[in-house]
């Protein structure tokens, strides 16, 4: 601590600088660990709210007929479920992990821009407060799907759409600030010796993700602003009657939307690339190719957006281009999967809860990748497009993909964060419930989609009944098991056994050189980066 140059008598207490007391600690904190904690709890709250919406959907779809909710409310549920899970649960959870881990992994004392860090978090409760409040407004909340295609979201939208637009602007501002912070931290605050190609893969994936965010969140802000102008200021960007083009909305939206998909999965790749080597007790296979694969996926994500729009009536040449480009993504994605398996190959594996979630991630994400490859085949996509096959596909990459990786990360790093271990038996029960729940929910949806069930419908023809009932049962199992997860985490924080500093015998990386729990201020002077603690 003696390096801190004291120039002001009032700052004498620097040596004992700990968290403030009470609410002020959380409101005014600029500490990356506190802010990471805030992000993680916030995203978990959103996960439960979005999950409840999913259960409203699945309850209604348990049987054919209109039982519990009216179609207009059903549409609000599908829309808000999607928006809350994407922008409220998955993205903030990864920002939370970034906050906690990136400074500790690169040997930095904090994020580069701590005050902005506080602001980017505290915007979020307001953004989601506004968005959820629309459900209680006259005319209801957003009901046009999370993709909010114009003109359903403009000319035909409920009045509350203006609040939705404002909320999206706020979320975008938060994400942009968060990503600037990540980039500034990684590029400027690495400890001496932590060269780029020695960074843990989680840091690499987040660096690339942050650039994706920086590139596309302004596009999202642009498209909602164009909506705002169409609705309130008489422009006709997306209004055919005024000379506008509804299809242009989709092009702009998906230019944001496709990189957004990778924003939600690249950090997951990073998490899994940290966990598998630890429990295989073997260095990550093909570190360099992992980095290049992530970079290639990020690049390709900018030139495949129109595969979401194969049915809008593009010219043949456009269809072919987007089909080929989309198929190409399978190559770097395959490299990653092969690398993970090669990391496990001839390792000395144990199967603690984080490893179980990581392995489930590799399997189930790959299944989502397979259906993604099928969706890339344009003529076949005409049959799959906007059916439950697509719902199954993206839930396979997002739930046992992104969300399993977040859960794995929590189990893996929680001992470092709070200094206590979770209960291994409870963790395994949580894993198996989640694993069974997620597959019972989403695997049958492949079949209902192929058999012809469109997505976003509150009621369905009789031939889809069996698979929907199964899917609803799975959803309730999965939903319950995430409440159980909260119990496991709280049990660990309050009653868990003391964790060692290294926590896992196979763990490598600077964060494991710190005591458990990690002190409020860590790496106040830069650590020496030994080869053993460079990327595993």
């Amino acid at each position, binding site marked *: 601590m003696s390096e801190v140059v004291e120039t002001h008598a009032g700052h004498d207490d620097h040596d004992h600088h700990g968290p403030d007391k009470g609410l002020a600690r959380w409101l005014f904190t600029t500490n990356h660990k506190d802010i990471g904690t805030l992000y993680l709890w916030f995203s978990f709250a959103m996960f439960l709210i979005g999950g409840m919406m999913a259960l409203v959907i699945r309850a209604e779809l348990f049987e054919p007929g209109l039982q519990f909710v009216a179609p207009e409310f059903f549409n609000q549920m599908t829309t808000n479920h999607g928006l809350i899970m994407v922008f409220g649960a998955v993205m903030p959870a990864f920002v939370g992990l970034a906050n906690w881990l990136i400074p500790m992994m690169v040997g930095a004392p904090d994020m580069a821009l701590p005050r902005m860090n506080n602001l980017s978090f505290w915007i979020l409760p307001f953004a989601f407060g506004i968005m959820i409040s629309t459900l209680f407004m006259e005319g209801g909340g957003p009901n046009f799907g999370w993709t909010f295609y114009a003109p359903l979201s403009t000319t035909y939208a409920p009045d509350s759409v203006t609040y939705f637009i404002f909320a999206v602007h706020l979320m975008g501002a938060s994400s942009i600030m968060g990503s600037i912070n990540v980039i500034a931290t990684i590029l400027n605050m690495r400890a001496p010796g932590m060269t780029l190609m020695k960074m843990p893969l989680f840091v690499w994936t987040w660096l690339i993700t942050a650039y994706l965010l920086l590139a596309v969140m302004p596009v999202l802000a642009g498209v909602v602003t164009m909506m705002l102008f169409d609705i309130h200021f008489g422009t006709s960007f997306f209004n*055919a009657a005024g000379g506008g083009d509804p299809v242009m909305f989709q092009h702009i939206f998906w230019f944001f939307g496709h990189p957004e998909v990778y924003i939600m999965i690249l950090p997951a790749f990073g998490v899994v690339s940290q966990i598998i080597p630890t429990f295989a007790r073997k260095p990550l296979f093909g570190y360099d190719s992992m980095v290049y694969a992530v970079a290639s996926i990020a690049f390709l994500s900018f030139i495949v957006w129109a595969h979401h729009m194969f049915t809008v009536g593009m010219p043949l040449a456009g269809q072919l281009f987007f089909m080929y480009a989309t*198929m190409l993504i399978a190559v770097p994605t395959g490299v990653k999967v092969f690398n993970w398996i090669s990391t496990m190959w001839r390792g000395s*594996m144990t199967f603690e809860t984080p490893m179980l979630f990581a392995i489930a991630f590799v399997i189930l994400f790959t299944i989502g990748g397979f259906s993604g490859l099928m969706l890339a085949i344009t003529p076949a996509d005409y*049959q799959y497009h906007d059916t439950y096959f697509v719902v199954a596909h993206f839930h396979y990459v997002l739930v046992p993909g992104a969300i399993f990786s977040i859960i794995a990360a929590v189990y893996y790093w929680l001992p470092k964060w709070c200094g206590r271990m979770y209960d291994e038996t409870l963790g395994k029960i949580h894993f198996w419930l989640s694993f069974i729940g997620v597959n019972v929910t989403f695997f049958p949806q492949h079949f209902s989609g192929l*058999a012809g069930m469109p997505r976003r419908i509150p009621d369905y023809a009789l031939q889809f009944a069996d698979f929907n009932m199964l899917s609803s049962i799975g959803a309730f199992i999965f939903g319950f098991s995430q409440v159980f997860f909260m119990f496991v985490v709280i049990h660990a924080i309050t009653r868990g056994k003391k964790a060692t500093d290294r926590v896992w015998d196979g763990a490598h990386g600077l964060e494991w050189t710190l005591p458990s729990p990690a002190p409020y201020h860590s790496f106040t002077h830069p650590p020496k980066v030994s080869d053993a603690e460079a990327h595993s």
Partner: protein
Amino acid sequence: MRVNKLNAAGWRRAALGALLMAAAGLASADELNMPVGVTEISRSVYDLHMIILWVCVVIGIVVFGAMFWSIIHHRRSQGHEAAQFHENTRLEIAWTIVPTIILIAMAVPATSTLIKMYDTGGEDMTVEVRGYQWKWQYKYLDEDYQSTFGFMSTLATPQDEFYNRSAKGEHYLLEVDEPLRIPINKKVRFLLTSEDVIHAWWVPDFGIKRDAVPGILNELWTIVEEPGVYRGQCTELCGKDHGFMPVVVQAMEQEDFDAWYATKLKEEQERKALESMVFTTDELMARGEEVYTKNCVSCHQANGQGVPPVFPSLVGSPVATGDRDAHIRMVLNGVPGTSMQAFGAQLSKAEIAAVVHYERHAWGNNAEDITQPVDVANVEAGQ
């Protein structure tokens, strides 16, 4: 150690479960897989689907097989020591190139099918398909692309079935009052557009789907080989009743189709003749109720009370009890920026007269007037 043994058993069970699931997925029972369909295109699409599915299954077996082998054998509880290799350039090059070759092989048939699907020329007849919230309009066009006749195709499932008040029929939610009819073995070209939001028109058995976008005309074609009734649904979220706008197409032998076509043309002429008739109030009420039930009830409800504030009540409303011509104009032109459509393009003058009359005299509304087709014609001419 005991715990780890249990885990091994657990993993084996999981592997078995995954295999069973995959096997279930490959059984090509109708309810599990994409329909083969009744067109050349739908069969090529089905073949593409099966090829890519098998490619994925084989890759999956190899990849997951290696993984489970490793999980079972390379575990610490078996006393396996970790190797320390972390690179193998040749292997890495191989697993970049092999998938690329598989993908190129896959792209070839996909490209040729796609090119076939885009060959819209040389059609035998053209049908305009127009999406409305929440129904389809089909217009048969002649060689100069003029409409000969058209009709609305609306969900025929009664509301009682949605609310489980009566048993659901075999074609629950997939039945319409009047299906699109086309002849078999003829190239039928569809021109798709929309009157309000984006819809998507899909018949799985034909292997075709295309969005109906306002302000844009999309093309699609099919040659159906088997007579029969083919059912699909709107597949683009289009608002409240998105789940309730089925697509039903009846493919008929040429002579049956010709006979039907001739009858429809005659009906069209009779419908035009109705527009100069004068009806009694009872006739207007009866016809009006019929039109209302078909076109208005999903928003304004059977009791006329709507779902305020989005869908206003008509009971005692200023429109339904005030100036009659303003009421007619609203039905003709709709209210831009709301769900209230312009029915001038969808309904005949006789139907509009009847429904306006009905709305002004049903549910206790008591406007002191009668609305005849000629009044609608006058309002339309005067605007």
